[in-house]
Structure formats: structure tokens, C-alpha cells
């Protein structure tokens, strides 16, 4: 049962990555080239997915958008993961006042609705990739820190860590060689499911105008731009929407498969 999930998930994600890498070569048109005369056309041989309100080729824009959405989504999970893991390990291994402070801050952050907190942050920092990443990191580290901290507390009690301590190994060695590697699996599983959130949240922010700005092709902002024409050219909103959904599904399947593998 875990077989197909893993392969479908990995296949979908792999396909997106491939599309992002090859986009400049396989995109039939310049994604920024406007042709107002040919605006809002339906699918044709020249424009397989039609054109948008400025006559830009929709297929090329979707392909090129992968080069923005994928790396930004990856960074938006990786940065909080790194920050959270570092804090979680220090808190779990050493405890004490640092642990107490970090955990109180994380309590505070978790008490707020996550989306609202992120919107407030992005709004005050101004739109753009940089402020998106800052707000994702500032909010997202909490779960990683708690997850890793709990794992470290468990692993600290194991006999192999006690053996490493009685062998006189210093804390850095015990942490890096004996504790951290055994937390990675749990973190990786969460990271995969966190990507689902990052992909959809990123699109949502761009849709609301806080994220990546036009004319840079990005799935969320494409949906926003195509919104007025939803009755006449529905494909302009439907296709980017589907693209986001399928990618999120791919990550979700991957996360599920990893979770099941861990249990087995």
C-alpha cells in the first residue's frame, strides 16, 4: 500500500522539479512578452493554454512560475526547519533557562492564529519574497523546535547517549553524532507535510497581493489576475489552481508514505 503512494508522490514532485529546471527551454514563448491584440484567447496551436489579459502565453507563464514557486516554497519550509531544529536541540539537550525562554516564546506564538500572524508580519514588512520568507520562518520554527526538542529528550535517555557521555565525548560530538541523526527522520516526515502548507500558503499570499508581484509569473498571482475573466476564460484561473493542487497532493502523498514507512 505504501508503494504506490511513495512513487506517485515522488513522481509528481519530480515532474515539477524537472519542469522548473527545463522551463526556459521548453516554454514556447517569452512569459513576459505581451501581445494585447491576442489577449484572452482560448487554447490554440500557438498558445496551448491560451493567453492572459495582456496576451501573454499562459503555458509559458505556468512553467516559468515553477521556477519561483518551488524554490520559495522549499526555502519557506527549510529556513524554519533549520532554525527550529537548532533551537530544539539546544533546548532538549541542555534544558535550563534557555529552554524555558524559548518554550515560552513558542507558547506565545502558538496562541495566535498562524495565518493572521503571518499576514500581519508580511503587511508590516512589505510585499516580496524576502518578507514572505521572514514571516514563514518567524512563525514556522515553533513546530520544528517542539518536535525536535521532544525527540532529543527521548534520545537523551537512551543508553547509547549515556555510553557516549561516559566515554567522555564532548557535548558537540554527542549532539552532532549521536542525537541529531536520530531526530532527522521525524523532522523529514514533518517537513514533507509542511511543504504542502508552504505551497498553498505561498499561493494564497500572492493571490492576496502580499507575495510575488506581477509581472513575475507566479501561480497565486496569476489566479488573482485572471479572476475578472472567470466567466469568459475559466481556464486562466482553473489551470494554475490545478497546478497548485496537484503539487500539494504530491507532497502530501510523499509525507504519508514516509510516515507509513516509519511505522512499518
Amino acid at each position: 500500500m505504501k508503494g504506490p503512494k511513495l512513487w506517485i508522490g515522488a513522481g509528481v514532485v519530480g515532474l515539477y522539479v524537472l519542469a522548473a529546471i527545463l522551463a526556459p527551454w521548453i516554454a514556447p514563448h517569452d512569459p513576459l512578452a505581451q501581445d494585447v491584440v491576442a489577449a484572452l484567447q482560448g487554447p490554440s496551436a500557438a498558445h496551448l493554454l491560451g493567453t492572459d489579459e495582456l496576451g501573454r502565453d499562459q503555458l509559458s507563464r505556468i512553467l516559468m512560475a515553477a521556477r519561483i514557486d518551488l524554490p520559495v516554497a522549499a526555502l519557506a519550509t527549510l529556513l524554519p526547519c533549520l532554525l527550529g531544529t537548532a533551537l530544539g536541540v539546544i533546548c532538549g539537550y541542555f534544558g535550563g533557562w534557555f529552554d524555558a525562554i524559548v518554550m515560552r516564546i513558542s507558547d506565545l506564538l502558538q496562541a495566535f492564529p498562524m495565518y493572521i500572524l503571518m499576514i500581519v508580519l508580511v503587511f508590516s514588512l512589505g510585499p516580496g519574497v524576502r518578507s514572505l520568507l521572514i514571516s514563514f520562518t518567524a512563525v514556522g520554527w515553533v513546530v520544528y523546535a517542539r518536535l525536535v526538542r521532544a525527540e532529543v529528550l527521548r534520545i537523551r535517555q537512551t543508553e547509547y547517549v549515556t555510553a557516549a557521555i561516559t566515554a567522555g565525548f564532548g557535548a558537540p560530538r554527542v549532539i552532532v553524532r549521536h542525537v541529531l541523526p536520530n531526530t532527522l527522520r521525524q523532522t523529514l516526515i514533518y517537513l514533507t507535510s509542511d511543504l504542502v502548507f508552504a505551497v498553498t500558503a505561498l499561493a494564497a499570499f500572492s493571490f492576496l497581493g502580499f507575495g510575488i508581484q506581477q509581472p513575475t509569473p507566479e501561480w497565486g498571482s496569476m489566479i488573482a489576475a485572471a479572476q475578472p475573466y472567470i466567466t469568459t476564460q475559466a481556464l486562466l484561473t482553473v489551470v494554475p489552481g490545478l497546478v497548485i493542487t496537484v503539487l500539494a497532493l504530491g507532497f502530501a502523498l510523499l509525507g504519508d508514505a514516509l510516515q507509513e514507512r516509519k511505522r512499518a
Partner: protein
Amino acid sequence: MSALLEIENVTVSFGRRKHAITAVDNVTLHVEKGSATGIVGESGSGKSTLMRTVLGLNRPQAGSVRFRGAELGARRDLATRRAMQMVFQDPGTTLNPARTVGSTLAEMLRVHRVVPAERVDARVGELLDLVHLPAEIREARPHRLSGGQKQRVAIARALALEPELLIADEATSALDVIVQAGVLDLLAELRASTGVTLICISHDLDLVRYLCDTAVVMRHGRIVEQGPVAELFAAPSDPYTAELIAAAPTLPGSTEESVR
């Protein structure tokens, strides 16, 4: 013979003042160099806590621990740490699941520079041989090993540092009987060949009789009786010891009386 380890009036307690639990209560114990001492007691008797204190994993509230005549504090140099090693109870968590057997052993040798770097590989082979494990096991990760094999690797890991004192904390109690007998014979053999001083913590009186020459009986954090194994088991002076001996299940035909 001289005392390798001198535990003097050690008290260890946990928790805040009001709710403190005294795990080890004013214990004095001397362990001779080259001897094998068995510490027996029921769960909660403080036997493991006492040994964790010797290793520096707990701090005593009172008393002192001297090793090779020098007082041991909270901070210990690498040489002191190297000189006392422990083998633990649970084969399931005794080895780091992320590392191969070979890298676990090699790390010990490298960090302590037990042998020159170019000799590490060969020494890992010797260690595996010492605990009677096949050389191929070097590449294996712990989940591929049986419980007995894991405990043997744990013994090899401890011996890699060539310690003067080896503490076995219920090292065989999670193993099947036949495997247990094999590991106990290995410990006896290693003691004879390396001259390491052995302390065995066990709930099993027969194990202590089998492996050790001195027995220490602990209860509620105190030592109730200690002495040479033969004497202590033949004529226990404390009623608790007698009770423990009487309670131990024996196979028909394995008591001293039935021999006669």
C-alpha cells in the same frame, strides 16, 4: 591488592527538599583491583544509582568517590572517564541506530587515540574477535543484530577504551537464557584475559554467584550485607539476604542439598 574504587559515605537523593527521595543512603564500598563485585537488590534498591554516581552521571549530595586513590569530582579528565566504562541493560537502545557497528567502535578508538589512526581498522577487527562476533558484523547497523549480538557489541565498545573498571548494569537480564549464559561466560573470560575489575549489578543472585567473588546486597539505598560470595550465600547474616536467597527460583536438583 589495593582498592581501585573507594566509595565513602555516599548519599544521593533526587527531587526538591520537601519531596526528596534518597536513592542511595550513606553507602561505603571498596572495590579491590582485579576483583569481581556483584551488587544485588530489588528494583529501587539504589544499585544502579550508586554506579551512575561512580560514573559521574549523578552528583552525590554527600560523601566522596575515589578512583585509583584520587577523588572524583563533577569534572573529570578524559583519562579518568576512559578508565571506567559501563555496559547497559537494554539491547534495544544500547547502540546508536544511525551508525554501523564498525563506526561505533572506531569512534571510541579515535576520540581517545587508543591506537594510532592507521591501526583503528585492525583494532576494530580485534575487538569484534574478542567478543566472538564475526568480522562481517562491522558493516551492520544495530537493527540487523540479535539482542545477544548487540550486548556483545556494547561490551566491545566498553572494552575499546581498555578500562580498568567495567560496570555491567543488568547487562544480560533482557536476553534469553541460553544467550545470557554465553554473554556471562564472555564476561568471565574477558576478566581473566584483560584483568579488568568487574562490577555487576543484578537482581539475579545466581548470576552474582556465578560471575563474582564479592557480593553486596542493597536494600532501600543501603548496603545490608557484603562479603565473599561463598560465605554470603552459604550463611547470610542478614535476614533480608536470607529471604532473597530463599525466594530465588531454583530448578529441582540444583540446590546444594540435593547434590549431597
